[in-house]
């Protein structure tokens, strides 16, 4: 497939569609606040004339639009998006690490400020006349102070101690003044000021997001929060106006402060969860700059890969990664292309053969003339496919958003019913409408309605789940990993490097006179001098068997055919059966055996001495030890297993038979792997397991992409789950953790809504003091913390402590 760069502006990248007369643009969207946004964008753009298909990814903040260029213009889409309050930026620019870290620190500061306001508000409203319950928020006060300490701890112990102590001292001073009766008149005004500072100052961004959401017709948690906060402020203002003794003016204001604080806390917590996982992935990536050894003006110079030009001559040393697509000019070597194409046997390359950037050079040195750099190269085509798959990945409506979709309208309805009910009821009963009571009841419902613990319910269950997963060598990276994996009904497995070891070993030897030791010894001795791709496998087997290769007196490599060497004055020839026959060696007694081995996917080499055949050696990829068991575990879990590989049908069928796979697709090109996943997605959610460059688009496309820890960078970056331990058994474990974490999340969300749910009908009576809303908050937040972190509080503190810390001691287990 050709990729036309098209007319790319600063705001979107444009490319040819796979369908005729259509174009595609990709844009990066800012301002997505919840999973409901994706639906809104898809609806808004889908309505425009000429638009065929819209796909939006929340996790990656990208939109892909396919349209008819004769009718629609990209500028029009972007304007539509801006009109409903999203921002657009260049999809090719990724957020730098420092920016993420800065966001985290500034969100942390915001939280500290909000807590300071809350801690000041609580003692002001402490009112002994309401009873003991008025002191319950003191618990909140203490716990919030403790959080401030944890947050500031990373900036310095003394700053943390001083800030926390200062806050508590202020709180105690205010409490003293209050209990002494000095604050009777000032309290409502003080609390009011704190509420205004929080809602319009510290929490301005939430107000902005809520307004945006309302404009798009979405009722998400930001909207619900602002409804609660504004109801609190309205209740307080009414109190200031009517000046009735006993009316909880200050308490109303204080509730507004508290809900805001908890909301900011939960925002910060989600941000930590998100940033930490993306940083954990960065640790895994090979961050060393990729350089190439380029011949310029007769000298070899080390250049960054970006500076290599088409037509440059690049020297590739043994074991190095080939830096760019090109053609071999001189030298010969076996090149391991398995990470690129999925073919498990290294391929011999010599003058005139083309090589793919990203494949690994074997034991010879190559001089390569580069043919494609950047946009046109194989790797960048794969990256394009990954980008496409990113936007086409099926979204998941987050649990919290799903609940809010129903919950928020109900809160509004109940508040309206309370208001109207009290107006009507009091008018019917006594003849005049009790406006004051009706308003109080309505506002109380709204204040009570915001379940502030809901924001922390998902991140906390993720903190726990991710921690448990990490202990088992699994890195759970995205929300999809937790919410999606349990829903998966089909699992696609890559062959090379996933189900198999991904490198050839000696599997069978056949010696004519039964002396396998001698066969191996001679083959190893000859191969040791050559740079044949399979040489290492033969030497390994010889050493494994305790065979000592004899000394070689002289040798000659016959590129593409084999090697001859002189041993003990006799000529030994090792090479593929064809070339042996060509040189007059009679291999007829092995013919049927060779055919049999080759049909089983093996590569066969023959060994002859002084023109007489000694035997044959068959090499092939081998299954991972735990492959069969792991696939069986997946089938037991009710998953349909599918094998997809770039390798040939023979090799694929062999593996499928060995481990009992339901469906096999062989000879698949990288871009087609994603298409197969897309097709499977019509029948249910799909997980994909792979490790190569060629797997990356499919990993991104799948509902849950799983990369093996030893995989290539691009595969790891495209995956939702990374198996650091490299054990296939971890697949079933990861699914179990995903199931349990989701269960935890459901429990948490239930707890979050439960206390407020009970409070709402009571608040509708118009008899509930607003301080009860705070009690509900404190109880539900505490309950969720206990439920999520019981027994493992360390996980939580580890997550927080790492904020603002440079990544030095990579704690991630190195892949085996």
């Amino acid at each position, binding site marked *: 497939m050709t990729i036309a760069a098209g007319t790319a502006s600063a705001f979107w990248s444009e490319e040819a569609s796979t369908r005729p007369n259509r174009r595609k643009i990709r844009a990066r969207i800012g301002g997505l606040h919840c999973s409901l946004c994706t639906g809104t964008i898809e609806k808004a753009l889908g309505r425009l004339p000429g638009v065929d298909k819209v796909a939006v990814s929340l996790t990656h903040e990208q939109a892909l639009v396919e349209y008819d260029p004769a009718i629609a213009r990209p500028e029009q889409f972007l304007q539509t998006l801006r009109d409903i309050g999203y921002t657009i930026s260049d999809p090719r620019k990724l957020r730098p690490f420092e920016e993420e870290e800065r966001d985290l620190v500034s969100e942390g500061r915001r939280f500290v400020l909000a807590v300071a306001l809350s801690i000041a508000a609580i003692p002001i409203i402490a009112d002994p006349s309401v009873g003991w319950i008025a002191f319950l928020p003191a618990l909140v006060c203490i716990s919030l102070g403790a959080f401030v300490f944890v947050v500031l701890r990373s900036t310095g112990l003394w700053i943390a101690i001083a800030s926390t102590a200062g806050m508590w001292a202020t709180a105690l001073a205010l409490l003293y003044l209050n209990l002494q009766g000095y604050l009777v008149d000032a309290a409502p005004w003080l609390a009011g000021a704190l509420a205004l500072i929080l809602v319009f100052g510290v929490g301005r961004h939430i107000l902005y997001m809520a307004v945006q959401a309302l404009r798009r017709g979405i009722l998400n948690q930001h909207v619900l929060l602002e409804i609660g906060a504004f109801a609190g402020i309205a209740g307080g203002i009414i109190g200031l106006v009517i000046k009735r003794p006993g009316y909880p003016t200050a308490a109303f204001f204080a509730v507004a402060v508290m809900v805001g604080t908890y909301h900011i806390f939960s925002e910060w917590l989600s941000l930590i969860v998100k940033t930490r996982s993306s940083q954990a992935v960065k640790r895994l990536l090979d961050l060393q700059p990729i350089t190439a050894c380029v011949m310029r003006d007769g000298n070899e110079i080390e250049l960054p890969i970006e500076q290599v030009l088409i037509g440059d001559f690049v020297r590739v040393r043994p074991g190095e990664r080939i830096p760019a697509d090109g053609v071999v000019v001189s030298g010969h070597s076996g090149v391991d292309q398995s990470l690129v194409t999925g073919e498990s046997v290294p391929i011999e390359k010599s003058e005139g053969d083309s090589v793919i950037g990203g494949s690994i050079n074997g034991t010879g040195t190559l001089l390569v003339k580069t043919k494609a750099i950047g946009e046109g190269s194989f790797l960048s085509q794969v990256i394009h496919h990954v980008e496409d798959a990113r936007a086409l990945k099926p979204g998941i409506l987050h649990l919290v958003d799903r609940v809010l979709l129903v919950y928020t309208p109900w809160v509004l309805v109940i508040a309206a019913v309370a208001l109207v009910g009290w107006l009507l009821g009091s008018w019917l009963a006594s003849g005049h409408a009790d406006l004051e009571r009706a308003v109080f009841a309505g506002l109380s419902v709204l204040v009570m309605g915001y379940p502030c613990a809901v924001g922390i319910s998902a991140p906390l269950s993720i903190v726990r789940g991710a921690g448990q997963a990490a202990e088992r060598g699994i890195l759970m990276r995205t929300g999809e990993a937790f919410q999606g994996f349990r829903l998966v009904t089909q699992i696609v497995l890559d062959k090379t490097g996933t189900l198999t070891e991904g490198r050839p070993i000696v599997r069978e030897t056949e010696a004519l006179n039964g002396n396998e030791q001698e066969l191996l*010894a001679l083959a*190893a*001795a000859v191969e*040791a*001098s050559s740079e044949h791709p399979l040489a290492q496998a033969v*030497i*390994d087997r010889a*050493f*494994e068997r305790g065979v*000592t*290769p*004899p*000394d*070689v007196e002289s*040798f000659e490599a016959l590129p593409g055919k084999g090697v001859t060497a002189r041993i*003990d004055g006799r000529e030994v020839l090792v090479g593929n059966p064809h070339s042996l026959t060509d040189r007059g060696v009679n291999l007829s007694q092995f013919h049927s055996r060779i055919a049999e081995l080759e049909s089983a996917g093996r590569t066969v080499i023959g060994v002859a001495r002084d023109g007489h055949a000694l035997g044959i050696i068959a090499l092939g990829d081998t299954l991972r030890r735990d492959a069969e068991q792991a696939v069986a575990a997946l089938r037991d879990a009710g998953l349909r297993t599918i094998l997809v590989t770039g390798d040939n049908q023979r090799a694929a069928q062999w593996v499928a038979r060995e481990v009992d796979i339901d469906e096999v697709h062989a000879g698949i090109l990288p871009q087609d792997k994603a298409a197969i996943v897309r097709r499977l997605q019509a029948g249910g959610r799909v997980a994909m397991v792979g490790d190569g460059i060629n797997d990356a688009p499919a990993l991104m496309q799948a509902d849950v992409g799983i990369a093996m820890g030893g995989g290539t960078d691009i595969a790891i970056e495209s995956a939702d789950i990374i198996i650091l331990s490299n054990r296939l058994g971890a697949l079933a474990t990861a699914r179990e953790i995903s199931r349990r974490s989701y269960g935890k999340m459901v429990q948490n969300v239930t707890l979050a809504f439960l206390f407020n749910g009970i409070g709402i009908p009571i608040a509708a009576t118009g008899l509930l003091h607003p301080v009860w809303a705070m009690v509900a908050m404190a109880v539900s937040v505490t309950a969720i913390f206990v439920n999520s972190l019981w027994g493992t509080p360390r996980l939580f503190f580890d997550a927080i402590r790492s904020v603002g810390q440079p990544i030095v001691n990579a704690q991630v287990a190195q892949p085996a």
Partner: protein
Amino acid sequence: MKTAVFRIEGMNCDACANTIKNLVEKEPGVRKASVSFPERQARVLYDPQAIQEDRLVAAIQKPGFRVVDREAAGEN
């Protein structure tokens, strides 16, 4: 290509054997090394034109192991 066998003293466990294997395989010209703790010996496949046997001995002895005997096991 030549294979040399060294008898080694001073190994305490398989980890020592592994250390020697890694050290020797780092030397240029060494194609393959295997070290056995139970047999107290190392077998090294190397290119005699790229490295002298004495350098192999030095590599083994550097962390404190002793090579007590050596033979070229190739001529069989």
